[in-house]
């Protein structure tokens, strides 16, 4: 109980510190920003560049357009739309990563052949990749269902999410000591049973940090994917749309950014909950 209370206080404290830093800099900073030798090293602090926190918060309550839905509802709906891509991309990415890790652990030759490509895959700029994926998708159909734009976004989320899981789980699956493997061999346990009884449980300390990275990557992938493929309906699209109104309604774009951040936190919290549930059964030394 005490620990939970401290955790909650820490969370609230972190938000307060963030708000204080924002408002503090806005209060003391130069409205035109600080320029050193022709380069701006500190941002502008006028209301167009850095609206007050309360302005952003109150903007959530106002309608998006005159007479439309309040903006909190629009952002929430956009976040839920994006969440679908994030969730499917994350789960599928984690499964693909797990499968690759198991394959690489099983066959050294696969590890040697595949691992460089796995690493290479992450060096391709997402902005370049997104239109390609969207283009391929446009020519696909799943049975009678035509390819939807959000599916391209999901694929991009998957593409970013599989990587930390593949690399982390490979480490985890290779983590058991040689004597643990000899022990399993002495029990005449085959590859599959060694995987289930030894390698997978031994890799959970590697799995959850990898999943947390994958969750964050899936959110980034989905938001950036929406922006670069121009997919309508998600929070990434809102960021783009609202930023066009930045001069007349500067608080608006910040509502979309807060929404995207909240989406990331929500996904991280879900992974954290999973870790908590699994961790309860583990060592309580």
């Amino acid at each position, binding site marked *: 109980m005490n620990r939970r209370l401290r955790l909650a206080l820490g969370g609230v404290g972190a938000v307060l510190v963030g708000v204080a830093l924002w408002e503090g800099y806005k209060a003391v900073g130069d409205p035109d920003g600080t320029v050193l030798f022709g380069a701006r090293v500190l941002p502008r602090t006028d209301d167009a560049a850095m609206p007050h926190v309360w302005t952003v918060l109150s903007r959530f309550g106002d309608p998006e357009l005159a007479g439309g839905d309040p903006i909190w509802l629009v952002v929430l709906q956009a976040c839920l739309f994006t969440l679908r891509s994030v969730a499917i991309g994350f789960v599928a990415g984690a499964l693909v990563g797990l499968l690759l890790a198991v394959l690489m652990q099983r066959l050294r030759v696969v590890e040697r052949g595949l691992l460089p490509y796995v690493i290479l895959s992450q060096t391709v700029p997402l902005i370049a990749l997104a239109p390609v994926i969207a283009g391929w998708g446009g020519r696909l159909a799943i049975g009678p269902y035509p390819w939807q734009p959000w599916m391209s976004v999901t694929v991009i989320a998957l593409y970013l999410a599989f990587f930390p899981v593949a690399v982390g789980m490979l480490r985890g699956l290779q983590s058991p*000591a040689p004597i*643990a493997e*000899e022990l399993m061999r002495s029990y*005449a346990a085959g590859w599959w049973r060694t995987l289930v009884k030894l390698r997978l449980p*031994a890799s959970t300390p590697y799995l959850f940090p990898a999943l947390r990275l994958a969750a964050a990557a899936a959110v980034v992938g989905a938001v950036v994917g929406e922006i670069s493929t121009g997919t309508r309906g998600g929070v990434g699209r809102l960021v783009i749309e609202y930023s066009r109104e930045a001069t007349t309604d500067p608080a608006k774009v910040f509502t979309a950014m807060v929404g995207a951040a909240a989406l990331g936190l929500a996904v991280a919290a879900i992974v954290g909950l999973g870790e908590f549930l699994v961790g309860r059964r583990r060592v309580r030394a």
Partner: protein
Amino acid sequence: MTSVVLEGVSKVFNAGRADEVTALTGVDLTVARGEFVSLIGPSGCGKSTLLRLVGDLIQPTSGAITVAGKSARTARVDQEYGIAFQQAGLFDWRTVQRNVELPLELRGSPRQERHDRAREMLDLVGLAEFAGHYPAQLSGGMQQRVAIARALAVHPPLLLMDEPFGALDEMTRERLQDELLRICASTGTSTIFVTHSIPEAVYLSDRVVVMSARPGRITEVVPVDLGPRTEATRQSPGFFAGITKVRKALRGDPVPAAEPLVAP
């Protein structure tokens, strides 16, 4: 009745390459049912290799290995032996109870039998009240006892031990030696025990197999007859005589037929 028979066994690692190592050559050894045999020798003499060959964890380059009347491979698949290493090697995500159940689980024993058998083994090593603990909550000596319980869980006729007490302090070590002898006597288990310690080898064994390195081979087999071990055994002249014999064999001195009883 024999438990283990090795005939002309040799093992070459990295055969045909520049880093070729002859780990063992021309090993003949027979272990009778219920017998306790120690392997002792300098580092690199192949005693751990010999143990792994018996356990079919590695295959011999030449020679034949029979365990419980079957080939080493069949014996492993039938779980005819239990094995324990210098590190306890417990699975830290499993409770003590579930660690001991592991070999039974892999054998497909029903839940109730697994549970009862693990309880029985934990009783045997005196850790029944720690069944629900996790390995990280136990001392090194207790972890090693859990590892022994796990090795004994399937009631194997043969126990293979690779320096199981090597990392323990002297007091724990002597207590576990007595415990091991009691367990082996009560279950009739044959044991092959790898150790670096001469007193340990002499105290535990019916026969001490002395090995030498480069290439690894058996140089001498020293029989020990100390009768039932008691408190007094570790101070008895016979114990010291055995130690002297093994030490001489390790140095490569010829052992005279009638060894005088001298304390070192």
